[in-house]
């Protein structure tokens, strides 16, 4: 086990009633690493991500985040979530707040930052995602791509140690995908630890330090993008990549 691992997943199982979605997943993510998780729909990759910040309760196995056992019921999950940013497929911006208000809310209520500190951080993060001219806009006045970038800024303002991206570009029109991917790319370059579930093969190839291929609730294969894309070992991986490209 690497000393540097920030997220450690051991034998993770998750079932919804009789439906087993995760059947024992092992995965470690080291600090500063960008891990892209690929796989056909229903392979359990989103569920895996949602178990990391306990939006889903694991039914077996362990997840460690830094030195906290996330899967322990006694763990104060809110403390863990402060340090784990999450970006959703459907953005989930708060529609009653402006872009700035969205980024400020949790800073003030969770981190107890002062209004002015929260505002400063909000403006900084919105600038980082290229939306400094949209800070006072409401979500309904923004395009999907812009909304998703606000959602990224909202997560970043909490100074997370790891960022989870759950199909962040899947709900976007094709012409809006680029802007969001560019923000994610620059985050990766800046050294952010990222777990990314996506269907964007180009992103996986260019940005990932490691590609993890999942199918039917298990990790089938993992390695560098070159290894997985150019020389896949498993038949299932070959099959999946063949269908995609």
């Amino acid at each position, binding site marked *: 086990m690497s000393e540097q691992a920030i997220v450690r997943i051991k034998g993770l199982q998750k079932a919804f009633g009789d439906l087993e979605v995760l059947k024992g997943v092992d995965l470690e993510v080291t600090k500063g690493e960008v891990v892209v998780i690929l796989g056909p729909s229903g392979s359990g990759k989103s569920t895996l991500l949602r178990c990391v910040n306990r939006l889903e309760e694991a039914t077996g196995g362990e997840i460690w985040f830094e030195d906290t056992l996330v899967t322990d019921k006694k763990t104060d999950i*809110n403390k863990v979530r*402060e340090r784990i*940013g999450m970006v959703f497929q459907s953005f989930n911006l708060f529609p009653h707040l402006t872009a700035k208000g969205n980024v400020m*809310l949790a800073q003030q209520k969770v981190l107890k930052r002062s209004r002015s500190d929260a505002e400063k951080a909000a403006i900084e993060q919105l600038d980082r995602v290229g939306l400094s001219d949209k800070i006072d806009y409401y979500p*309904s006045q923004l395009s*999907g791509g812009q909304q998703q970038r606000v959602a990224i800024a*909202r997560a970043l303002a909490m100074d997370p140690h790891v960022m989870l991206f759950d199909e962040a570009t899947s709900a976007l029109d094709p012409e809006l995908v680029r802007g969001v991917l560019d923000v994610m790319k620059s985050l990766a370059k800046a050294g952010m630890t990222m777990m990314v579930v996506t269907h964007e093969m180009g992103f996986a190839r260019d940005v990932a330090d490691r590609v993890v291929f999942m199918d039917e609730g298990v990790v089938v294969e993992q390695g560098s993008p070159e290894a997985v894309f150019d020389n896949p070992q498993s038949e299932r991986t070959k099959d999946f990549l063949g269908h995609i490209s």
Partner: protein
Amino acid sequence: MDQLIESLQTIQEIFFNTEKMADAFPIILAAFPVSVFIGVGSFFLAIPGGLLLAFMKMAKSRLIRWPATFYVDVVRGTPLFLQILVVYFGLTLLPFYQDLIKAVPALKEPFLFGIDFTIYMRAFFVLSFNSAAYMAEIFRAGIQSIPKGQMEAARSLGMTTPQAMGFVIIPQTVRRILPTLMSEFILLFKDTALLAAVGVAEMTLRARELVASTFNQSAYMVAAGFYLLLTIPLGRLVGRLEDKLAESEGGGGGKRPPTLDAPAIDAEHVIAHSNGLPTTDSRSNPMTGGHR
């Protein structure tokens, strides 16, 4: 042609007699605050009850859900007029009520606008208990119409459930249900007229007395005017709020399933009343919406 003018004149004479209307005006005007007081008072008294019922209906435990469901079904499934009759005459038969009146004779003294408190008490009681049942559905549907992703996003940022409720879910719910809640008020305000049948001296009763003594319908038209004075501007406001809401939620949260926006029609919704939430495609119209 002459015949037409003659019949128009007759209609005017019976319904819109200027002299009779002028005579009725101050009397109806004096009763206007009674109707407004009962309507507004019952409305605000119904809100806590409605919220309580809504949270009970959303409870996990069947033991909590069941009494609330039963209450809502009974109240919404029976005529308000019947409920008024039961409360007005039934309540006075209770020994507890008779003791109360004996103990506090002041309750029988004129309270506001020349009407004694027991009358108001019974009016508030029946109308607020009735309205709470309708509001329960409005509140419940409102809270449940907020997409699940909102709670998830708030929780993923480290907020506690009460924080997420207070800063994310409830503010959105209030915005969404405000037009529906105002429509409920309009309906409630119009329903105060039913109290005329049990002798509450509000506008409709006063108008009926005038009509009986003058053999002329004009007093009713004056009363109608006073109801419209409140219902038309409020109805317009509801429409404006709904438009604003539809506009501001146009791009709320990416692609989300339509079922989250419009609460599914269930058995409760089928019983009378237009309490669907305001969405772009199903607008509740308080002025024409069927009710009770």
